[in-house]
């Protein structure tokens, strides 16, 4: 069926692109190696420099892929659930909670892996708080309640973070906290990246199984229920999954914005609106953007440019361009 083929071709092309970018990222870096040596190292042989380079580049590449895909999935899901193209993973207050968790762990003098764990817990806690608070609000539009609760919880977390910034030692802790907030793909160890990969994959599996039900939920709760779906439960499941994915990725990379907002929009232009195609395409495009940005971060000298800054610099104008092109196509 040519229609099915039309749907698959862009996805396949995106998969190729992501693979190509990932391989490219594995081959670029300050240690002097050649692609041949790296290939040998991947097979277990090869000289020690190539093996070292591979072992050091792999976590960063994996982190970029997981973070990009995770944020894009969460963003696409929230845009469907809120029926709002401006929705992004930050809406539920998860990112702020993760940042606050990391800050408090830093001030407590915990090891870096504990900071990631505290960030994850902080994100989960604030996401749970938002969902619980919104569920307690019975009347009115549930989307509005959710947005307001997300804003409130996010603001509370930001206030906690602000206190932490004040209390941090300006010569030691404050720079570290600032770097964490601005985002980096090079921070996570392979183990941490693999854990995040597991969590994000689980989230992806849930969301992809929900599939067309997300489309139904996007029509509104009444419509979804009239179509025979347990709309409240499914909505909660989708939101919780999005919060989980966001928390998992923010905890290993810090705050990286714009990918969650941008990737679904670009994906929409390429494969249309149905969740079954939109979610995987968003994830692939998100991973691709993250890989590119990760490389850019290291391209200007040995000092890394925080990826959160780069995504903002690249993302904001790109989003504007997408929006204009999309607006131009519609009557």
């Amino acid at each position, binding site marked *: 069926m040519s229609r099915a083929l039309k749907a698959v071709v862009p996805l396949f092309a995106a998969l190729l692109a992501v693979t190509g970018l990932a391989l490219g990222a594995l081959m670029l*870096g300050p240690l002097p190696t050649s692609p041949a040596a790296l290939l040998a190292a991947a097979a277990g042989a090869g000289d020690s420099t190539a093996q070292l380079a591979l072992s*050091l580049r792999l976590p960063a590449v994996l982190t970029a892929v997981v973070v990009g895909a995770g944020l894009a999935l969460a963003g696409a899901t929230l845009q469907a659930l809120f029926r709002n193209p401006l929705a992004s993973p930050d809406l539920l207050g998860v990112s702020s909670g993760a940042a606050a968790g990391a800050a408090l762990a830093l001030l407590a003098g915990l090891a870096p892996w504990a900071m990631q764990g505290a960030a994850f817990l902080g994100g989960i806690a604030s996401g749970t708080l938002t969902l619980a608070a919104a569920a307690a609000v019975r009347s009115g539009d549930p989307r509005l309640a959710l947005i307001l609760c997300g804003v409130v919880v996010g603001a509370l977390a930001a206030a906690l973070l602000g206190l932490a*910034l004040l209390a941090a030692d300006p*010569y030691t802790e404050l*720079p*570290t906290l600032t*770097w964490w907030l601005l985002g980096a793909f090079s921070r996570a160890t392979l183990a941490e990246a693999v854990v995040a990969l597991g969590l994000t994959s689980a989230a992806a599996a849930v969301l992809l199984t929900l599939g067309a039900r997300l489309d139904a939920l996007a029509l509104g709760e009444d419509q979804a229920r009239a179509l025979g779906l347990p709309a409240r439960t499914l909505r909660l499941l989708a939101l919780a999954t999005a919060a989980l994915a966001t928390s998992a990725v923010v905890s290993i990379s810090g705050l990286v914005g714009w990918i969650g907002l941008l990737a679904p929009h670009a994906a929409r232009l390429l494969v249309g609106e149905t969740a079954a195609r939109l979610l995987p395409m968003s994830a692939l495009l998100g991973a691709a953007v993250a890989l590119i940005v990760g490389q850019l971060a290291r391209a200007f000298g*040995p000092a890394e440019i925080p990826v959160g800054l780069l995504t903002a610099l690249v993302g904001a104008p790109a989003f504007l361009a997408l929006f204009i092109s999309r607006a131009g196509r519609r009557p």
Partner: protein
Amino acid sequence: MPSRRALLATALALGPAALAGCQRAPAPVRAGGVLAAGQPAALLIFTLAPERLIGWPRRPVAEALALLSPLADRPEVGALASGGRPIDLEAAAALAPTLALDYGDVDADSQGLARRTRAALNLPYQLIDGRLALSPAAFREAGRRLGVELLGEARAADAEQLLAALPRTGGPSFYLARSGDGLETAFPGALAVEALEAGGWSNVAVGGAGLGRVTAEQLAAWDPEVIVTQDAVFAAAAADQPLWCRRRSGARRRIIVLASRPFGWIDGPPSVNRLIGLAWLGSRDPLGPPDPALAANVAGLHERLYHRRPTPEEMLGLLPRVLA
């Protein structure tokens, strides 16, 4: 999404509120109280005229206070200059200082702050260059302003002796590891590595300025001979990670863990505390296990800078650990 600017705005907005809430009642105003614009200035004042220090921009933690003389028990008042909890001009005026001192970069920002404070509070404001090589002049200037010229002269002589004893060249290539994962570093010329570079050690981190984050691979590419750190959390983790304790050739790499209490030996803050680091750099074998001569030297400096001689047990904790 809460942008960085929003976070900073929140932090700055909460500053005075938090200060008002947490500040203890200021100590009775002594004749001639001196306001430190930042932590480096506070240390300078504490060394020369501790009884005149109104308060710390950032109160040292209990662990640090235990190593300082009881004169260090001053309240936290916040900093006029950037870095740390801010204090606004009105709160500063309420502390009734007779002199304000800033010790650090002499640039447009700090000069502007000096002008504004002088004008607003009608307060003598002394800005002293914080470069390590100018420490003797700094002591003399501060001694003059604080009315303790003899003491200032004595400390200046100490500083001159320590600077002269530094080997200008021939030190190892080093990488300064900051933050818990060690991937934050300082590039050549930054305050954090001024002491090490003055001691003739060469910073492998080229191509940047100030503080920055690098990747693990970048560190491996630079392949320094020595890792220096003041971060105990990092040191504990790095001891068994091959990335840190082994060079590319496979040989063992030394990780030198310097004390950060009561104040760091080479940084944290970039002030007179760094003289202790200079004593270490000028010692017979800074890369080797610490020797009694260094211990004696450090104990003496401690007493002269912080007005308290560490006990032998405390000295053991203060001397550098070399993980090799």
